[in-house]
């Protein structure tokens, strides 16, 4: 029998926080680099009542997590509302149908908006359900807007749904920076919903990385020993996708040298992963990241380094030395042109 993909404590801090907020009808945002395993969090919230019951207890059925994959958004207001409607329909299939609105709007967007409002009101008032829309990968949503489209999300939280409807956003960058072009921070009531609840989605804890590797190893038929698995964990530093990439590379092309960092650093798949992570950072983060990797940090970089520590990308060793979470990424930054 294969070990489960997740332990019972998988991402417990994050899941507990999300469930707590969903129950209270409060919105929040997680900022995490690409490949940190946020899709797993989304999958658990959407499908795993067993995992959620640890945090919601008997209230699991009373909280719904419709998921919107914002990467499929067609960049129109109608498209966004349509995604919300589809996501909501996906989690309410087991419930009786919602009465149609009495007045049907001529305008497409208005019609969809009313349908959504009617459904939400029905679910919140009649069924006393909490609904937390998960907006996955919504960087472009916040960056492109327009603002009035985002404000519709706040409008959905009418008098009837105020304490029942909330949002969980996943972004790679700080949300207010993404929406700076249309003054998200100053003008958006939607942003106000979660502006005090922007959390760093850190990389895996060692236990989660070990469990992931154990699961992958068992699925593949135990090709790697304990020692190799530990080295993969060290090289990836807890980055979920990098862990998977390294595992697959090791299984396919086992290293024949003691210089593991040098060996894996030049692999295209690894470089691609490091590049994706790096280029998903803010410009200032990239600059400081480069300087950190090259040992040329300035005094002025301290705040940004603290910020990167909060993101889990930088760690402080026992000798107070500040280093990147992964020696592979550090090597990439040292040699990356810029």
């Amino acid at each position, binding site marked *: 029998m294969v070990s489960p993909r997740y332990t019972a404590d998988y991402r417990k801090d994050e899941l507990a926080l999300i469930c707590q907020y969903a129950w209270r009808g409060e919105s929040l945002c997680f900022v995490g680099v690409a490949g940190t395993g946020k899709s797993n969090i989304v999958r658990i919230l959407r499908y795993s009542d067993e995992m959620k019951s640890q*945090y919601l207890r008997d209230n699991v059925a009373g909280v719904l997590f419709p998921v919107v994959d914002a990467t499929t958004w067609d960049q*129109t207001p109608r498209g966004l509302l349509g995604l919300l409607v589809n996501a909501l329909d996906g989690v309410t299939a087991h419930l009786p149908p919602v009465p149609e609105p009495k*007045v049907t709007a001529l305008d497409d967007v208005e019609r969809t908006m009313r349908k959504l409002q009617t459904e939400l009101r029905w679910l919140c008032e009649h069924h006393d359900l909490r609904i937390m829309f998960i907006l996955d990968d919504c960087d472009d949503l916040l960056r492109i807007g327009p603002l009035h489209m985002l404000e519709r999300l706040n409008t959905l939280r009418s008098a009837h749904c105020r304490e029942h409807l909330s949002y969980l956003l996943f972004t790679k960058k*700080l949300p207010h920076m993404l929406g700076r072009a249309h003054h998200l921070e100053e003008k958006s009531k939607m942003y106000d919903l979660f502006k005090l609840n922007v959390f760093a989605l850190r990389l895996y804890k060692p236990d989660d990385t070990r469990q992931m590797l154990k699961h992958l190893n068992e699925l593949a038929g135990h090709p790697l020993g304990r020692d190799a698995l530990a080295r993969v964990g060290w090289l990836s530093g807890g980055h979920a996708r990098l862990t998977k990439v390294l595992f697959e590379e090791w299984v396919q092309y086992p290293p024949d040298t003691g210089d593991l960092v040098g060996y894996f650093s030049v692999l*295209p798949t690894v*470089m691609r992963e490091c590049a994706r992570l790096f280029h998903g950072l803010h*410009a200032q983060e990239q600059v400081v990241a480069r300087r950190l990797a090259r040992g040329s940090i300035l005094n002025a970089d301290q705040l940004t380094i603290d910020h990167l520590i909060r993101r889990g990308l930088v760690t402080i060793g026992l000798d107070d030395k500040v280093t990147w979470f992964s020696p592979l990424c550090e090597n990439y930054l040292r040699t990356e042109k810029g």
Partner: protein
Amino acid sequence: MDSGILVMLILLGFIAVLILAALFEVRTVDQGEQIVVNEMGRVRRVSGPGPVVLMRGRDKVARTIDCRNRKKTMTVSDYINGIPFDYTLEFWCRTDLNRAAQLSGLRLEDLAVFDDHERDGYVRTKVRAALQEGLRVLEDAAEPAESATQVDRLLPVLPAVPSARSLLSFMTEELKQTLPTVGVLFSPEHPLAVTDVRFNEDVTGSLSRGHVVKLMREQFPDMTPDMLMQTLMSINGIDVPKIERLLFGAGDSAQVGVRVRDGEVKPQANIYPGLRPQRGDPGVWDGPMATPLPEESPAPQPLPAMPPPIPPRDDNVLAAQLEPDEDSQVETLTPADLAVLKRVPLFDDSAKAA
């Protein structure tokens, strides 16, 4: 002899009177008035009512002051809990420059240089200041909750409410202290009173509209917010031609409505391709639906144009060929920006279900 002395004395007396009459004059100041006497251009005294002796050539009556105890009515504007209102206040006071100078410690000449009209303006300023201070004390004492309605916020200044009475008491004490500084004394035998409270049209309008909305909701509980708004607009006399669309319920096959523009009613229907509406569908015109719309019916307005889509980033390019993000070149993260991000709090395992 005696008669000669007598005549001399009379003559002397007469001459003295003539001299005095030449030097002085006696002005009679009416009851309820006083006069400001300047000596060589400077305020010397405030005298009256009754006879007042003035030296010709030296003393000059600068102005007459009305010192009757009179009722004043003033309308003063201010804000309570962010809502503007007008108070019409009534009180009694009199001008008594001598007494006011004693009470206030100011010089008589500083108080006497203003005429009655100017003094009235200063009294209004003092009343307004007393009201402002009183409102500040009221607001500090009891801040309304965030969920407080407009009525809750206005309550403290409504007459006969205890807080309004204490506001007037505060103002009375304030005016007793401050009015002497402009030469006026407050008359406590006639208490300060509010004779009128007015709110601006936005407030009264919203209170009235709120009442109408409440009544309508009670009568028509199924009415949607949009229909409610349209009906309210009609009640308030908004021009019907400005309402461009009235919405009807319809089946899935068609959307039917009416567009009103410049007083002309034009039918309009949206028919979904591939779906033929049937007679009997709610709101469908009783006629052949396959016929096209009349030419003069305008097409439905398109959605506003979206900006051109940003091409998706190609993540499958080798690291060496990736270009830096264009946006990222102009970003600067301030300490405030960096402070937005928080750590996830640690979960307490003991709170987890068994």
